[in-house]
């Protein structure tokens, strides 16, 4: 019985962290002047992948890359990372919470992007991560010449924590 209860709690906490990372990314996308239509159309696939890899322990980070498709030389404009800490709460009983102020701070610091900019989501996973429908392999853009700043842990639950960082071009 206790195993079943623990399984349910784990399912809820992974769902909580997964959905709130997506909610926060939506807040970032809207706050930075980008069109949320792409996120909305992909929401179910994104949530399924993120929750699956959180539950299996393979998700290292969920990344939002912002780029300008019209720039053939260097299309990088910005990036936001949610980095997962699987042992954020050592006893695994951390409450479910979200700190929207951390997200708002990242938006303010990163600033807004031109309307020509587009974005994509990349899940950075450990080797051996299970395949999830709708996701394909890719490589992250280089962060050379960009500066990374961490604003703090934005989401917590169970044993999980998700800290937020943003990149700006130096």
């Amino acid at each position: 019985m206790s195993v079943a209860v623990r399984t349910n709690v784990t399912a809820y906490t992974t769902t909580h962290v997964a959905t709130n990372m997506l909610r926060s990314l939506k807040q970032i996308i809207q706050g930075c002047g980008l069109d949320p239509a792409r996120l909305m159309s992909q929401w179910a696939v994104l949530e399924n992948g993120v929750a699956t890899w959180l539950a299996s322990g393979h998700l290292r980070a969920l990344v939002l890359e912002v780029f300008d498709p019209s720039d053939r030389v260097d299309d990088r404009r910005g990036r936001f990372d949610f980095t997962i800490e699987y042992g954020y709460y050592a006893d695994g009983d951390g409450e479910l919470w979200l700190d929207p102020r951390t997200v708002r701070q990242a938006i303010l610091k990163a600033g807004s992007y031109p309307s020509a900019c587009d974005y994509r989501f990349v899940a950075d996973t450990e080797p051996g991560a299970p395949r999830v429908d709708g996701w394909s392999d890719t490589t992250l853009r280089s962060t050379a010449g960009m500066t990374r700043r961490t604003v703090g842990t934005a989401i917590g639950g169970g044993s999980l924590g998700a800290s937020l960082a943003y990149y700006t071009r130096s």
Partner: protein
Amino acid sequence: MLDDATGPAAMLIAEEVTRAAPIILSGGGPQLRIYTLHGEAAMEADLDQELSLPFVPTAGDWALSLPASPEDLEAVGAALAVISPRISVRDSTDGDGVAVASRPSASIPIINTEELERP
């Protein structure tokens, strides 16, 4: 058709709009209003009492109304417009979507007793 609305619907549920404003399905049988639980409330909910519906809510001429916060109305409306006219979005702050039907003045007749007492 409902599968095509999964993205916008999942986003609205994740935004917890449906905690207070229901997803409304009007079709065959009683109107179905779906609310959602989140966070600790979802963890503590007793799901053992769940039963299947005794009717098919999408039988016949049905319509689905999704609640959205004012800032999401335009984007969700644009996404649903290309899916089906049966699926629409409404402002979650405009009551529960059944205000007209439940408004007392709309259904209760007012009797002027003074007129009845006139000779």
